[in-house]
């Protein structure tokens, strides 16, 4: 069994890469990164393990923050509260975790398992349950797999701990968990329903932390050497360049607690004279090229700053930004009929049959 030592430089890359995999949402990993810098300064260290090294009857804790990004800018994410969500779950189920893992590699939650893992001195499994960012708890590989949707622990920094003991479906996990989160002040540290080693091996999306680190490292290296960071990403990931252009319009509205809207782009370079629009619900959902859908969820649609290569989020994208749109391959688990029911275009209200950018 092999554990990979994670350096602070890996974490710096992870923050950049996880933001790319956030596909427009998931929250900027800046504050988790600051936490990790502080932890490493104090001597804490983290390790990464492969899901293959889990025993079938091991228990694995899945860590994530829930809440409004704006609240997260005032009540700053902290590692001890995440660690307490894990402790609360261990107490509740009467089991010790063998390792922790990420619910959502995309965005800030891609870094948070490391914050909890540093305190618990547990390794982080190189797997997650989304392979990207999605807005709701039922949009995960473990929900597609029909795994038990409870219990969930939700912890507030002031010491309150709540447990969602039993719910019938993942949508209910989301609904009840969200209510608790709002009462806390629209932010909560959670430990998601615990998984066995066998479940992680069968239903986890594997290698995603390594992937995020590789993407981030490629971008940072290109920035250092003044190379094209987009080309650098496409060298380490089998992605497709979809479009280069600039933002010419952004329309946003908040409905049912989601940020929805559409961004329009005007082409540059080889795409001069052609238009792209991308619909979003926190994350980028469907990209249209000259009114034809060219990429859609669960394909990863990544909107990147053409110069820095860093991801551009749906909350902050603005007129005039020069961006490059790429697609990255979706996790295989979402390509089944059941997977598409959870995260395909119809799950977001688009009456489109899923067709991948990567299908021949």
């Amino acid at each position, binding site marked *: 069994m092999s554990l990979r030592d994670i350096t602070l430089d890996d974490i710096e890359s992870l923050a950049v890469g996880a933001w790319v995999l956030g596909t427009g949402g998931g929250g900027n990993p800046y504050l988790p990164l600051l936490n990790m810098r502080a932890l490493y300064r104090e001597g804490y260290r983290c390790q990464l393990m492969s899901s293959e090294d889990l025993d079938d009857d091991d228990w694995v804790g899945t860590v994530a923050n829930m809440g409004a990004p704006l609240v997260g800018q005032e009540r700053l994410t902290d*590692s001890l509260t995440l660690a307490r969500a894990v402790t609360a779950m261990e107490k509740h189920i009467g089991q010790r975790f063998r390792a922790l893992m990420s619910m959502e590699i995309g965005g800030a939650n891609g870094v948070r398992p490391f914050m909890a893992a540093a305190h618990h001195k547990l390794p982080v499994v190189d797997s997650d349950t989304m392979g990207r960012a999605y807005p709701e708890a039922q949009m995960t590989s473990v929900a597609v797999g029909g795994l038990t949707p409870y219990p969930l622990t939700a912890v507030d920094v002031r010491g309150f701990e709540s447990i969602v003991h039993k719910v019938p479906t993942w949508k209910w996990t989301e609904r009840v968990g969200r209510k608790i989160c709002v009462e806390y002040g629209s932010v909560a540290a959670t430990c998601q329903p615990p998984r066995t080693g066998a479940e992680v091996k069968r239903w986890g999306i594997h290698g995603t932390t390594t992937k995020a680190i590789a993407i981030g490292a490629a971008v940072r290296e290109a920035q250092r050497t003044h190379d094209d960071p987009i080309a650098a990403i496409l060298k380490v990931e089998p992605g497709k360049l979809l479009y280069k252009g*600039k933002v010419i319009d952004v329309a946003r509205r908040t409905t049912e607690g989601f940020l929805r809207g559409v961004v329009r782009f005007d082409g540059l370079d080889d795409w001069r004279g052609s238009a792209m629009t991308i619909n979003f619900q926190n994350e980028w959902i469907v990209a249209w090229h000259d009114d034809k859908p060219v990429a859609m969820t669960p394909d990863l649609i990544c909107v990147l700053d053409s110069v820095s290569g860093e991801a551009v989020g749906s909350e902050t994208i603005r007129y005039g930004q020069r961006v490059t749109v790429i697609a990255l391959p979706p996790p295989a688990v979402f390509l089944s009929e059941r997977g598409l029911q959870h995260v395909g275009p119809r799950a977001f209200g688009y009456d489109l049959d899923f067709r991948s950018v990567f299908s021949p």
Partner: protein
Amino acid sequence: MRRIGIDVGGTNTDAVLIEDGKVTGAVKAPTSEDVTTGILDSLKALAATGVLKGKRIDGVMIGTTHFINAVVQRRHLTKVGALRLGMPASASLPPFCDWPEDLAEIVRGGVWMVEGGHEFDGRPFMPLDEAAITAAAREMKAKGLRSVAISAIFSPLDPSHEKRAAEIVAGEVPGASITCSSDLGRIGLLERENAGLLNAGLADLARDTIAAFEQAIRDSGIAAPLYITQNDGTVVEATQARRLPVYSFASGATNSMRGGAYLSGLLDAMVIDVGGTTTDVGQLRHGFPREANSVVKVGGVRTLFRMPDLMSIGLGGGSHVSLDPLKVGPLSVGYRLLREGIAFGGKQLTTTDIAVAAGRLALGDRAKVTHLDAATCARVFGEAQRMVEETVDRMKTEAGDVPLIAVGGGAFLVPDKLEGVSEVIRVTHGDCANAVGAAIAQVSGECDQIFRDMARVDAIARANELAADRAVSAGADRATLSTIETEDMPLAYLPGNALRVRVRVVGDVAAT
């Protein structure tokens, strides 16, 4: 109305006199190390033109880059006691946690974190721990700290905890200068707190600099109140500027945009200010620069408060030019142009040499640049045009052609026709646009907060009232107030139709 506007820049101190809406005098004097001398010299030069004789001056408005330079150069900074109200939240990221270490070393006098703060909907997060604040204040006093920055979670929504803590600290540490983060603005604890810490770190410099400004005006024999211009193109009375120096950080660039608006008579336009080394592009809305909505780094510190949204590129009158392959800037000869440019007998090819060769400028010795043919000049101007076009386009907020006001000594690099621009406007006194911008400044008030369970129109109306009250308390005449910016954004995830509304109101300086 008769006002003197002064811009204290890195190289020159410019002064202009504006009478009943017209520029009636404009002079330049070298900036001095002690500030006072440069201002006094420029005022003397203005007086020497005879325009001030026997006239009553209503106000002297000064814009300066002094405070931002202190942060960038790490000079003249005060040690600060940081007091954060919000425990147990945010404990793992204490004040100064994302500062460059060299600057933190200079400014960090100590960090105290106690219980307090609010929720996003106005509920208290934790009761304010007054005993802990008293204890912290006594420790600060014992350490000899005399400048204190106070920040509380969600204080832009409810500043009461910060204000109460300030009272306690003032009682324990008499004469301390105290900065509350809610006076500086926006949601985003670290960035708002950083602005507060920088502000507190400038306490001594602000006191001394403003005293020097007052001295210079007194010495010049002008009997008029002193106002200091701010990042948003408005002014505050000297006492308030002494309290909140960070609000004057970017006043130079802002003043040149405001001056451009004034001199051209346009309220909605793009402004391009081409200097010797850099070009700044910004957008005027209702005569004021559009503000940055995102994080702005000052001296390596992430902050978020009223700053103009500017884009700077390395293009100016002193930019190096290489012809094969073609490259213009970002290197520049800067103030050494008159020595190092080819037209002046130097060796470095610059954009100014190209302009002299092409006959756009009558400077230096044209005979020295005859080897630069028309096609070469056209290529270089073409590259400058491409750089300008892209920057202007990036700073626009919507498609469609807009007018562009070109100011600054390097404005010859801006051609009369540009893609995306309806018209390029050049103005007289464009080289003193920043002093003009200072002279015409007004007073503003701002409200930026979250409203819940309110109709959008009611939320905006309430924000307007709050902003108007703040403008009046900053010295504006209520009768002249007008709203210049309204922005609202629905907030994802928050229940109750949460809407973040930002409103800015301006008015003329009230007669005292």
